[in-house]
């Protein structure tokens, strides 16, 4: 009798445990770190990467999408068509609804691009739309862009974060309540603490998204992020942890570390308008004087890839020029002597410790350059000062920074850019590449541009900053590489394996 009672009790207990386990199974949710709070959620008002990290791809989408392999694929437009490369007609996907329930129509597309081109709007990237002449609505689902001139980047620009499609009626509130067609709808923004997105039940891609809720928690302190991950308060840090933090968490079996490629090129910029960097021999000497492998080891714990030009490995026309101007201190000294600096010179390197890898890189570089007689004084300045003094006013000798934007060789064709690199030959090549549509010819132009860059050494391309993401084990669908920009994190296909 006693034994039967015990068996019965045990069975009931086991059943209760099983039932409660099923009940306690958490719905698919994700808590993820956001290293900085967005300054607003309107992609047509701010270029901030913190805004793109939350809104782009997740809340708002464009006609064309750059996918995880860097390929442009039809998105809100189910296809496009052009016969003369001047008139592009987009055929919209039918039945796509904004988060406010209204269907996306061709008039919305026209409104969005007309507004972006209007200087009154204060769109952050007005130049992306310079080539557009007229936008003609053919019917509710067909719209034609008539270009003023052939532009090889047109489709690319239509896929950028500034080209997201939103409903006209929501334009005034995009900053605090973005509305789009994305897999998640905006739910809440607790200023200073978090942003919450919820599943879009009406998403136009069937079966997606896989998560019910995404919470972005704003935590900038990497130690606090590590603690939150380890304490189980956070599921993932997809952008914002450095190699020094990842090393530690790699030892913990509860987490997976994703290391991938990005478009973030870390460079040592030289002020080409300031002596002695006006002389190409000095610039080449500096390049020869830096052991990039050492920098990668010292600054990034060996993670990342050494670069030889500003075209990164994710670019379709990438040529590996990492060894084009190799580490060669003897040659560097010779070049310096030829340029009139047989005893080297003193120079100041300004870095912003907000991006700590720049400080570590600077220390290795200063050590390297000492061997060729160049004394580098490292000056740490705050990010706001960096933007004002270095970036806007070009008041610097040397600086280190990562350029995260994809397809950004255009900066080298702009003599007013803070490198002050003024090369008519490069500008000509670049201008040609802008209007060359034939893939083979365009590739050839890009190869020439890369070789010319390596030759003229306007900056020293150090390394590609790797994509470093840490998540709890079992989280799937995260992009390994980031071809669409280093801060862009597409969560539409992300979900937990089996039960979390």
């Amino acid at each position, binding site marked *: 009798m006693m034994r039967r009672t015990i068996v019965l009790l045990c069975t009931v207990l086991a059943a209760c445990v099983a039932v409660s386990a099923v009940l306690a199974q958490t719905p698919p949710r994700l808590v993820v770190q956001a290293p900085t709070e967005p300054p607003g959620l309107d992609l047509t008002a701010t270029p901030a990467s913190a805004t793109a990290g939350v809104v782009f791809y997740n809340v708002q989408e464009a006609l064309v999408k750059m996918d995880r392999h860097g390929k442009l694929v039809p998105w809100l437009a189910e296809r496009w068509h052009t016969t003369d490369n001047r008139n592009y007609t987009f055929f919209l996907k039918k039945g796509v609804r904004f988060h406010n329930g209204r269907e996306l129509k061709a008039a919305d597309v026209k409104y969005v691009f007309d507004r972006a081109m209007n200087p009154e709007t*204060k769109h*952050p*990237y007005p130049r992306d739309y310079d080539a557009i002449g007229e936008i003609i609505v053919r019917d509710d689902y067909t719209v034609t862009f008539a270009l003023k001139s052939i532009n090889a980047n047109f489709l690319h620009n239509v896929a950028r974060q500034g080209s997201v499609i939103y409903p006209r009626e929501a334009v005034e509130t995009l900053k605090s309540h973005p509305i789009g067609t994305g897999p998640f709808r905006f739910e809440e923004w607790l200023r*200073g*603490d978090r942003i919450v997105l919820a599943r879009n039940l009406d998403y136009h891609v069937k079966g997606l998204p896989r998560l019910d809720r995404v919470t972005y928690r704003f935590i900038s302190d990497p130690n*606090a992020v590590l*603690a939150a991950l380890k304490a189980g308060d956070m599921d993932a840090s997809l952008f914002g942890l450095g190699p020094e933090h990842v090393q530690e968490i790699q030892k913990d079996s509860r987490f997976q570390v994703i290391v991938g490629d990005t478009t973030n090129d870390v460079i040592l910029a030289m002020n080409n308008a300031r002596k002695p960097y006006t002389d190409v021999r000095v610039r080449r000497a500096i390049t020869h004087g830096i052991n990039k492998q050492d920098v990668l080891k010292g600054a990034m714990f060996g993670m990342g890839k050494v670069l030889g030009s500003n075209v990164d490995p994710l670019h379709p026309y990438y040529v590996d020029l990492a060894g084009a101007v190799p580490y060669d201190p003897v040659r560097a000294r010779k070049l310096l002597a030829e340029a009139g600096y047989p005893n080297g010179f003193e120079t100041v390197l300004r870095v912003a410790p907000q991006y700590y890898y720049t400080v570590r890189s600077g220390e290795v570089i200063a050590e390297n350059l000492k061997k060729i007689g160049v004394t580098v004084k490292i000056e740490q300045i705050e990010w706001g*000062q960096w933007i004002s003094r270095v970036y*806007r006013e070009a008041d610097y000798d040397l600086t280190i920074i990562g350029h995260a934007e994809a397809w950004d060789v255009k900066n080298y064709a702009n003599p007013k850019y803070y490198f002050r690199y003024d090369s008519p030959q490069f500008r000509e090549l670049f201008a040609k590449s802008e209007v060359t549509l034939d893939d083979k010819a365009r590739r050839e132009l890009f190869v020439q541009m890369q070789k010319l860059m390596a030759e003229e050494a306007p900056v020293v391309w150090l390394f590609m900053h790797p994509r470093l993401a840490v998540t709890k084990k079992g989280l799937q669908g995260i992009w390994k590489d980031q071809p669409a920009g280093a801060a862009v994190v597409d969560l539409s296909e992300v979900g937990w394996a089996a039960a979390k």
Partner: protein
Amino acid sequence: MALVATLFFVSVLVFLVIRVLPGDPAELLMGLEGSPEATERLREAMGLNRPLPVQYVEWVGGVVRGDLGRSIQYDLPVGELIVTRLPVTLPLALLAAAFMVLLAIPLGLYAATHHRRSGDYLAMIVSQLGISIPQFWSGLLLILLFSVTLGWVRSGGFDGWSAGVWPALRSLLLPAAALGLFQAAVLVRATRSAVLDVLGEDYVRTARAKGVSERGVVGKHTLRNALIPIVTVAGIQLGQLVAGAIVLESVFALPGLGRLALGAIGARDLPVVQGVALFVASAIVVINFAVDLAYGFLDPRIRYE
């Protein structure tokens, strides 16, 4: 009058210091990829092109009418931002103050009454440690112990009071402890020396001579008379709690006033920095005023005309 003068001085100082700093809010908002034309348009829209005195007079005029301006970053009224952050920072500061007082006064008393004995030395060593360890470090150690290893409390974040009093308190306990511990370490020393001074007074010897119990001597005759320097130090400490909160709110990812200010400085969100600094300065002025009033209560000889 002194109050108004102090606040005026603070307002000018805050206004100028934040503008002397290199760094332009419009440039920061636009980031690296924004075009110079777009940045210029934004600068104009934010009114940053006007002369400084005009900007100052406009700001002060608004403040007098109760309008602290609009945040550049959030596009919300600064007053509203401050009010939404207070439910985090105020309880945090109060909890920390409670930690500070409950820990420091008994420990200081104990050290003074056990002068030059092992208990005194131990208390002094502990307080020296407390002063030497930076708050962000003790905060991280507390997180490692209580949240990562033991799992008793959350590692950071704050769900708001609407989620319940206990969950909210749980989020605040660790940061309040980290904040209070440091301040307590300072207050222990102040308490000890104040009590030691009073213990050497003639009236203490008289009280002992007439047979008052040691508890009565310490509790009634000594502590009350030692309270004036203790309250003075504690008042200053209360002001410093706010400064400490800036650091700890970052470590514990709390959406408080400190993190609001820190983020605003980084983004050169001038109206927010000005608003928070003015608010904190006003709070400190009020605390000092309260301390002055407390003197009269503690020592009937002090009277305010």
